[in-house]
C-alpha cells in the first residue's frame, strides 16, 4: 500500500483540475502512480506508454476510493470491488515530487530529461516516447524524483 507521502504537490491545487472518475474493478492504482481512462471512462493503471497518463492524486488505497463487498459473516465466495469515490488525477501544469511509488528508481535521471510512463510509473523517455513530464531535480539520497508536467 502506498504511503500517504507518495506525492508532494508543489503547485496550488486551485489552479489544477482534479478529475475524478470510477476505478475499474480489480485495479490497484496507488496515489503517486499514473492512470488512464479506458473506453468505459473508468481509471486503469497505465501499462503501455501513452500521452494520456495522468498523475494519481487520490488512489485506491484511500477509503473514499472504493468499498469491497464481501461476506463478512460467513466469508463465502470472492470479494467484489465497488468503485465509490473512484480515483482522482491531476490535470494541468504543476510541479510535484514523488517517491519510488511513482517512478522507476532503477533508472538514472538528469535535469530536463523527458519522462514517459510505463507500468504506472515515470521512466526516462528513450527518444520517441510520449513525454508527460520533465525532470526538475535528479533523484537524491531521499530517493525522490522532482518533476514538472509537460
Amino acid at each position, binding site marked *: 500500500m502506498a*504511503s*500517504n507521502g507518495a506525492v508532494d504537490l508543489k503547485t496550488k491545487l486551485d489552479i489544477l483540475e482534479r478529475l475524478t472518475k470510477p476505478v475499474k474493478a480489480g485495479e490497484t492504482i496507488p496515489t503517486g502512480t499514473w492512470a488512464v481512462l479506458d473506453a468505459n471512462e473508468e481509471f486503469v493503471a497505465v501499462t503501455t506508454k501513452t500521452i494520456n497518463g495522468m498523475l494519481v492524486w487520490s488512489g485506491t488505497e*484511500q477509503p473514499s476510493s472504493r468499498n469491497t*463487498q464481501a461476506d463478512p459473516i460467513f466469508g463465502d465466495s470472492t470479494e467484489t470491488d465497488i468503485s*465509490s*469515490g473512484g480515483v482522482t488525477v491531476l490535470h494541468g501544469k504543476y510541479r510535484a515530487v514523488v517517491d519510488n511509488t511513482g517512478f522507476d528508481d532503477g533508472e538514472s535521471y538528469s535535469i530536463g530529461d523527458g519522462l514517459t510512463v510505463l507500468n504506472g510509473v515515470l521512466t526516462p523517455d528513450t527518444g520517441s516516447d510520449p513525454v508527460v513530464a520533465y525532470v526538475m531535480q535528479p533523484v537524491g539520497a531521499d530517493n525522490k524524483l522532482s518533476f514538472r508536467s509537460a
Partner: protein
Amino acid sequence: MPSDGTGLAASGSTINALFTEALNDPSEISKLAEAGGAFIRQKLRELSFLRKIIPPVMVTKSDCQRSTQHDGLTKIVDIEPDSQAVPLTWRGEPDMSYVDAPRYEIGFFTISSEEYQKTEQELLAYESPVTKIIEENSVKDIQKVEDEKFLEHVDAALAISGNSAAVSDTRVTRNAISQLIKLITADQLKLDCILMTQEDFADVLAWEAVDVGDRVASEITVDGYKYNTLLGYKLITTIKNDIVLPKNIYGFAAPQFFGNFFILNQTKFWINKEANLIRWRSWEDIAVGIANIKAAARIVLS
C-alpha cells in the same frame, strides 16, 4: 413551492433578483447557504429510496476510525456473534466456545453536484427560480448517485449470495412476490420491504378481483393502489429505471439485519459570488455497506 415569506408564492424571476441582491452582502451569503442546505436535505429525505430501505445514521468524526495508511475516515461496525444452544443430560456439560465476532469496515466517500456558475445578469433573465435549478440539478443528481451506489453494493452482494432467481411470471404477481419472500426466509430472515420500478408497479394496478378481492379491486379502479404495503411488506417504488432495471424486483430484510448507511456531518451547500459571477455546489459524505449479504434478494421477471 418557493415563497416570498408572506405565504404567497413568488415568481421565479423575483426569486432570482432577490438571490443576486443578497449575494452582494457577505452576511447574506451564509443565510442563503443555510436556506439552500435545508432545502436540499428535505428533498433528499423524500426522494432517495436508499433512505427508505436503510434509514441514514448521522455520524461525526468521533464516531469514525482513522488509519495510519491513508488520510480518510472509515467506520467499523460490529456484527452479531453467532451462538447456539444444546440439549444436555443432567450429568452433561456444553462444549466450550470462544467468542469471536466479525466486524466490517465501510469507507466514506463524497457525492457532489457539479459546480454551477452563472453571471448575475443572465440569471435575472431566467423566468424559472434559481432554487428550482438547484433542486433539479443538485438534489436529483446527489440522490441518484446515492441510490446507484447502494444498488451496486446490493448487486455485488447478490452475486456472492446467489439470492437472485428468475421467475416464470412476466408481470408482478402474487406468485412472483412469494418467490421473493422465500428467497429471504430461506436464510432465516424476514422480508421487510420490496423495491420495484413504477413501471413494474403498474402491474399491481392491473390486479383483478380474483387477486385482491372485490373491495381492493374497486379501490384500485377508482383511486389507484394507495397502500404503503404489498402483501404485508413495505412497498417502495422508484422512477429511476436506469438504476433499478424493469422486471427486477428487490427484497430486503430490516436494516438491523442488513447493512449500514452513514452520513458524515450534514449535506453541505456552498455558494459564492465574485464580481458578477455566481457559483454554487452541494455535496455530502456518505458510507454504505452491506454486512449480511443474505438479507437482500432479487427476482427477475420473464
